[in-house]
C-alpha cells in the first residue's frame, strides 16, 4: 500500500499514462529511436535536477546552476579554441572541477557566513552570468571554431545511446549511490529533516550543506561542457532561466522544498516527465509554446499534492479509551 502511495510510483504511472495517450494517437512516438531522442534531450535537465536534489534535501536551493553551466561551458569552449590539442577528457574533468569550485563558493557563503541560500545563489547567478560575458567579450563561439573531438564526444554512440545520455545515466547512478551508500548521503536527509537532531547525531549541518552545493556545482559544470559540445555553440545566454526548469523537475519529482524528503529516482522521473511533455507536444500537434504553461501547472499541482502528503496529525493527549464529549466527573459545584 505504501508502495502505491509513494511519489515515485505515482510519477511512473503518470509518465506511463502520458506515453500511452501519445502512443495511442501517434505510435511513432514510442519508436525506440524517438524514446532515445527524448532521453538524450532530457539529459542536461536530469543531471542538473539530481544535483539540485541534494541541495534541496539539505533545506537549501541553488538558483545558480544554469549560470554555472553557462560559465563552465563557455570556459570549456574558450579553452578548446585556444588549445585545440588539449585532450577532451581533460576538458571534461576540468569542467567538473570548475563547476564544483563555483558550487563551493555558494557553499562556503551558506556555511561560514550563514547567508540564506536563495540570496547567495541569486547573487552568484547574476555574477556567473556576467562573467560569461566578460570572458567571451559577448562573442559567440561557433561550431567551426571548436575541434571535432570536442563536439563529437556527447554524440558518440555507445550501445545505441549517445554518450550524453550515458553521462546522465552515470550521473543518476553515482548520485543515487552517494545518497544511499555514504554517510554524507544520509546526512543530507538528516540535516534537512531535523537539523538540531543531526547535531546530536554528530553531523555538522553547515558542512553537509556545503558539500551538497559542491555536488550540485559539479553536475552543473559537467552539463556545461556537454551542452556547449552538443549544440556546438557557446554564447552568453545559453540555458538562461533553466534553473527554474530544474527546480520544477525536483518539485514534480516529490523533493520537498522544506528539506529532508525526496529521492534521486524522483528527480529523474520529474525531469523525464517534463522532457516527455516537451517532446510530445509537437508530436500531438500542440504548439510548443504550451510547454511552459503545462510545466507551470504541473509544478502547482505537485506542490499542492506534496503539501497534502506532508500534513500530519497533532499529538494525542486524550487516551483512546476516553469518552469523546461529556464530562467524566460530576460538574463542579458552583
Amino acid at each position, binding site marked *: 500500500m505504501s508502495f502505491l502511495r509513494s511519489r515515485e510510483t505515482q510519477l511512473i504511472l503518470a509518465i506511463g499514462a502520458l506515453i500511452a495517450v501519445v502512443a495511442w494517437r501517434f505510435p511513432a512516438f514510442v519508436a525506440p529511436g524517438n524514446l532515445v531522442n527524448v532521453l538524450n534531450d532530457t539529459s542536461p535537465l536530469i543531471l542538473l535536477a539530481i544535483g539540485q536534489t541534494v541541495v534541496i534535501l539539505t533545506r537549501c*536551493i541553488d538558483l545558480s546552476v544554469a549560470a554555472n553551466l553557462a560559465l563552465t561551458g563557455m570556459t570549456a569552449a574558450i579553452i578548446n579554441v585556444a588549445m585545440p590539442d588539449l585532450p577532451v577528457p581533460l576538458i571534461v574533468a576540468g569542467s567538473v572541477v570548475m563547476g564544483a569550485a563555483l558550487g563551493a563558493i555558494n557553499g562556503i557563503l551558506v556555511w561560514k557566513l550563514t547567508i540564506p541560500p536563495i540570496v547567495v545563489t541569486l547573487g552568484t547567478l*547574476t555574477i556567473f552570468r*556576467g562573467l560569461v560575458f*566578460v570572458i567571451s567579450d559577448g562573442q559567440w563561439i561557433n561550431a567551426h571554431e571548436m575541434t571535432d573531438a570536442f563536439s563529437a564526444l556527447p554524440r558518440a554512440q555507445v550501445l545505441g545511446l549517445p554518450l550524453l545520455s550515458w553521462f546522465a545515466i552515470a550521473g543518476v547512478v553515482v548520485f543515487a549511490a552517494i545518497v544511499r551508500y555514504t554517510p554524507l548521503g544520509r546526512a543530507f536527509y538528516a540535516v534537512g529533516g531535523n537539523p538540531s537532531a543531526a547535531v546530536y547525531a554528530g553531523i555538522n549541518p553547515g558542512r553537509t550543506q556545503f558539500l551538497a552545493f559542491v555536488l550540485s556545482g559539479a553536475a552543473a559544470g559537467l552539463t556545461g561542457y556537454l551542452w556547449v559540445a552538443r549544440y556546438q555553440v557557446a554564447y552568453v545566454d545559453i540555458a538562461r532561466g533553466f534553473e527554474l526548469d530544474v527546480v520544477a523537475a525536483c*518539485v514534480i519529482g516529490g523533493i520537498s522544498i522544506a528539506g529532508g524528503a525526496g529521492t534521486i529516482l524522483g528527480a529523474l522521473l520529474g525531469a523525464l516527465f517534463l522532457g516527455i511533455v516537451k517532446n510530445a507536444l509537437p508530436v500531438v500537434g500542440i*504548439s510548443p509554446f504550451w510547454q511552459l504553461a503545462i510545466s507551470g501547472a504541473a509544478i*502547482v499541482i505537485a506542490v499542492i499534492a506534496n503539501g497534502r502528503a506532508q500534513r500530519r496529525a497533532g499529538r494525542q493527549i486524550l487516551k483512546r479509551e476516553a469518552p469523546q464529549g461529556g464530562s467524566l466527573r460530576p460538574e463542579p459545584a458552583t
Partner: protein
Amino acid sequence: MSDMTTGAETRIIPDRLQSRFQRALGSWEVLLIAVAVAVFTFNALASPFFLNAWNLSDATFNFTEKAMIAFAMALLIIAGEIDLSVASIIALASTAMGAAVQMGFDTPALVFIGLATGLLCGAFNGLLVTGLGLPSIVVTIGTLSLFRGIAFMVLGDEAYGGYPSSFFWFGQGYVWWVITVEMVIFAICGVAFWILLHFTGFGRAVFAIGNNPTAALFSGIRVARVKFTLFLLTGLMSGLAAVCLTSRLASTRPSIAVGWELEIVTMVVLGGVSILGGSGSIPGVALAAIIMGMVTFGLGLLNVPGIVMSIFVGLLLIAVIAIPRLITMTKAKLS
C-alpha cells in the same frame, strides 16, 4: 517584594534612546544615500553626457517600473513571504491588455484589464499560500511558469500591437518638462507604500508577522488575511507595471520583462529588507532602485554593457549581507 508604586522603585523610562535624527544617521538608508551620491559624482566625472536633464530623465526608465513592484515585494518579504511570479504577471497582464486591444477596447478599459489581471494573479498566489499553507517560494516558481506560459499559449511567437495613442501616456508621457508620468507614478507609489508600512496598523502587522508569525497570531492579528492582502497588492503593482511597460514598448510579447523577478528581489534586499523577514523600509528600497538605475545608466554611458553591471549588482547583493556578518563574527572572535 516591595510595593511597586513607591517612588524610589519606580523609574521613568524614556520613550527613545536616541532622537529620531540620531537614529536615522546610523541607518542603512544613510549609507544608501552616500552610495547614491558617490555613484552620481562618479558618473558625472566619468561622462560629460551624464549631467543632462533629458539623459537623466531617460535613465529613470531603468528602474521606475521595477520599483513599483519592489515596493509591494518589500512588504511581502518583510512579512516572510516572497513572490517570484511578478514578471510573469506582467507578461500575462500585458497579454490580456493586448487581446483587449484586438477586441477594440479603449485606454480606460485596457488599464482596468491590466490591473484586474494582476489582482487575479495575486489572488491565485495568495490563495495557494495562505489558503492551503504552501511555501510561497515554490508556489510562485510554479505560477512564474504558469502565468508566462499562458501568455506564450496565447501569443506564441506573435506580438500584440495597435494600442490606442492615448494609452502611450503612461509609459511615454511627460507631466512637466523632463518629469515623466512614470516618475510621478513611482513617487506616488513610494509615498503610499511608505505610509502604509510605517504609519498604519496594517504596516505594524506586517512587521510583527515577519518577526514572529505565532506571536502575531496570538496578539490578535489576522495573519492569513494580511498575507493574502500582500499578495493582492503585489499582483496589483505588477499589473500597474505591466500598464507602464506595455505603454512604453507599445507592444506585447510573451517574453516581456523576463528575469525581472530576480532584479526586483535584489532591489528589495539591497534596500535593506531582510530576506528572512521582519525588517526593512520603503525609503531604502526607493534609494536602492535609484542607485541600480543610475549605475546601469552610468555604465551604459561608458559603453559598459548591462550584463557586466549585473556582476556588480550580484556582488553588492551578497556583500550587503556578508559584510555586517563578517564584522560581528570578527568582533565575537576578538572578545
